[in-house]
């Protein structure tokens, strides 16, 4: 059987044109996906059964027992952290938020170590955005800043940006100009008409210089800014102003270099100002396929897109205090639930050490370094391959993931339901 128009559960591009061959309920071939996506759809070795840690060792147990143990850990904790959510569907996010309410916990997504600062920038300035198809049809100038789509979002160029063809961009790449700003040469910078190799940690200065030029104050600039000649900056700014439709995509190179959310604030301001000359949009290059979806669900359910603390009975949000790394680093979190993520690999080392000290419940189809510090491990079906559900593309477009094969594992949603039921039982008993 061939399944057409499958959505890819890998990166924020959320490509929806994948063709998958299925025989005897097994995936035999994946076409059109990039290597990263194809590998995710094919899958790899799974956690076999639920496990709990006894005397330092993970030993297999039943799902019922695993739900009970997970519920006990979360229910007894004073300040449980519910973290992850980037690689599962929105239906699971809803259950996660409900569970966080029930246990009075803190819920946060992987955005906290990814585009969290971008969201804070958006809270300061708003975001002039567009769907990716708008970029494909109209953009004649593409900027990639601190982002290397050739390796992290391999199909972005062809489907949406530099090499895409649309109504007003029939010539594809030849109708467009490309500017890449990065601290080093990358595969993406090879595709650029103009490459600005800036000194690490100088993004804010360079954006400010561009804003000055766009605003007509370029004569105040020194001859070089952050290793870039003024001529090059003027040239880049003129390319931006001359565009009919400009698209500014930024990655973690901007979000996580010195300046953090202030860099984003500055980038958003540059784009706002460019809109008084031409049409310009800006978009974060979201990493995991549904990290954007968690922000959406969390916003409509709680009013905030991340880092929500339910300990007061109503949602409270203060990143710096209520983000995952904050409650761990401050030694507040006394238990954690990790769903569809791998904080042991992605958090700062000192924070991982704190995480290793507290009881951890993991829900994931696959083993990862977080499994090693988990006390309850609950394997689940792979969302977007074995379970259908909703995901949000990096531009905020909601799409429905397909189920390709059946699974003997419960979905993340079902696992969370099982834990919620046990938590409620504990609440009734006390």
């Amino acid at each position, binding site marked *: 059987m061939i399944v057409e128009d499958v959505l890819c559960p890998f990166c924020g591009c959320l490509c929806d044109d994948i063709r998958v061959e299925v025989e005897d309920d097994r995936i035999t071939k994946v076409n059109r996906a990039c290597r990263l996506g194809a590998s995710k759809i094919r899958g790899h070795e799974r956690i076999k059964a639920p496990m709990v840690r006894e005397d330092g060792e993970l030993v297999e147990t039943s799902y019922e027992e695993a739900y009970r143990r997970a519920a006990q850990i979360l229910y007894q904790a004073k300040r449980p952290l519910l973290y992850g959510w980037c690689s599962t569907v929105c239906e699971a996010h809803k259950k996660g938020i409900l569970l966080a309410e029930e246990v009075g916990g803190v819920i946060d997504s992987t955005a906290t170590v990814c585009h969290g600062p971008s969201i804070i920038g958006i809270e300061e300035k708003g975001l002039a955005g567009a769907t990716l*198809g708008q970029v494909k049809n109209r953009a004649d100038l593409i900027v990639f800043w601190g982002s290397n789509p050739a390796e992290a979002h391999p199909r972005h160029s062809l489907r949406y940006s530099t090499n895409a063809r649309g109504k007003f961009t029939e010539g594809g790449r030849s109708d467009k100009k490309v500017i890449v700003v990065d601290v080093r040469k990358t595969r993406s910078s090879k595709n650029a008409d103009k490459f600005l190799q800036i000194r690490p940690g100088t993004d804010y200065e360079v954006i400010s210089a561009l804003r000055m030029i766009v605003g007509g104050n370029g004569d105040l600039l020194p001859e070089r800014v952050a290793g870039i000649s003024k001529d090059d900056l003027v040239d880049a700014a003129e390319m931006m102003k001359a565009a*009919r439709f400009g698209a500014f995509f930024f990655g973690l190179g901007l979000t996580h270099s010195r300046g953090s959310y202030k860099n984003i604030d500055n980038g958003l301001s540059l784009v706002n100002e460019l809109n008084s000359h031409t049409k310009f949009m800006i978009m974060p290059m979201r990493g995991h396929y549904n990290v954007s979806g968690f922000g959406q669900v969390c916003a409509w359910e709680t009013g905030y897109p991340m880092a929500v603390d339910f300990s007061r009975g*109503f949602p409270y949000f203060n990143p710096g205090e209520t983000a995952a790394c904050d409650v761990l680093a401050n030694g507040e979190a006394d238990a954690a639930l990790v769903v569809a993520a791998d904080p042991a690999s992605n958090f700062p080392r000192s924070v991982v050490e704190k995480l290793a000290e507290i009881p951890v419940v993991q829900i994931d189809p696959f083993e990862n370094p977080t499994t090693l510090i988990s006390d309850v491990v609950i394997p689940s079906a792979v969302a977007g391959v074995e379970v259908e559900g909703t995901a*949000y593309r990096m531009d905020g*477009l909601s*799409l429905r993931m397909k189920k390709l094969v059946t699974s003997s594992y419960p979905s993340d949603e079902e696992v969370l339901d099982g834990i919620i039921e046990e938590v409620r039982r504990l609440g009734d008993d006390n």
Partner: protein
Amino acid sequence: MIIKGGIVYDPTNGIFGEEMDIFLDGGKVVEEAKGEEIDAQGLLVMPGGVDAHTHIAGTKVNTGRIMRPEDARSGLEPKTKILRPCTGYTVPNCYAIGYRYARMGYTTVFEAATPILEARHTHEELEEIPIVDKGALTLFGSNWEVLECVRDGDLDKLAAYVAWGLRASRGYGVKVVNPGGGEAWGFGGNVKGLDDPVPNFDTTPREIIRGLVKANEMLNLPHSVHLHTNNLGKPGNYTTALETLDIVKDIAPTRDRQVLHVTHMQFSSYGGTGWRDFKSEAPQIAEYFNRNDHVTMDMGQLIFGNATTMTADAPLEYSNARLLHAKWSNHDIELEESSGVVPLVYGRKMPINAIQWAIGLELALLTESPWKTLLTTDHPNGGPFVNYPEVITLLMSGAKREEEMATLHELVAKRTVLPTIEREMDWGDIAVMTRAAPAKVLGLAEKGHLGVGADADVTVYDLRPEKIDPARDHKRVKEALGRVKYTIKGGEVVVRDGEIVAVPRGRTYWVDASVPEKDAERVQADLVDKFDKYYSIQKSNYMVQDAYVTNPVVVKAGVI
């Protein structure tokens, strides 16, 4: 269930303040019923409230939440045994939306603008809004297929596309916002009037409006076209509004309703040549409505304090942001629309805001028939919907208006005629503007009234209409309107003494309109081409799946 002894206002059935019992059974109003008795002796009873225009779900609403954490800091309500926690004032979370409408006695609310491409998101949020029945209007005014059909004068194909778009979005009606402007904004432009050409598409706003109104009537849709005019929010725009009302006058509606609903008219009733000589032209608009019966409007009343403006009129939002140095979000939607979100604060001492506030009230008070002027704040553009009790008391009490005007910028007295208006509305007028008329305008036969066969949605207010004078006791009236004695939804008590006591799921209305096969096929051929070349997703992944509308009411319409 029996609601006993209430003083009933049911304008659709010609009942204005009669003491009578209401019988409910099986989710409907019936002739006779047994069971639970609700003591409403002497209390004001109306059908459940109907809001025909509010922004409560979808991308732009959530964009408002994401860019405004400061808004979520207000309106906090902790979780209870049956309630999810609530946040927000102008952009409340989904639960707060359902609970707050129910506490005001509203049981049906319609999201006013969703692009087809992003309708899945709209429905995800609508599904999370508890208690109330709902629906969403679908945006068509800058859609490429629409522009091409209008340009080619192919009304059959246009109607077939509208039918398909409603099905694809699980939408209820045709919404048109600043027609043509959303496409022009794709390259940073706008259209400046009814005959200003839409770039690259060789058509005009006039043709788009007329084309969609005709297609709407060919499909015999329950609701008329629902229009946000060109030039909205700009000084001097009342001429555009009057011209717009006139260009559909020759088109006959196929149902017993208006042929065009012009929404949040307050924002389209402006005089002057700029902000300096900005003034009200509401009397001219009201006069047009008094002389003509083919159109309806809603107020779009302004409320002082915080608002979050959000609209598919993206160029307007860009102007707002530049004018006010405010946060600005924009969101263009490929082949279909554009949109923007800008938070702002309306100030009593700001001359423009004070005049805008007066214009909304002038429109309602100067238009003789309440059936033509629905009560809205264009939530959250003019202000949040929780302020409906404030708006009602302003309409019912001249004394209240005078008290308010004394706190406003003095230009209100010079640039509007509000101080000279003596009209004080009665409960019958209010029941029309908040129940009967919105249901009729939307074409919801089982809503907005209490005749046999109507949905068992009833509001009982803690007010004794025979004892209280709303003109004088407006404080007491406002309090009671915000915290009803009972809200009954689908025959179930959901609010008692202002508290939510049950949280049923609401239903979602959408319209399935049939069209001739040959036209449907021509549309499909166009769409295959558009998805192949221009959309960023596959056609098979486009349409809203049934999983997102789990409790639907499918209204049939169409040409066959």
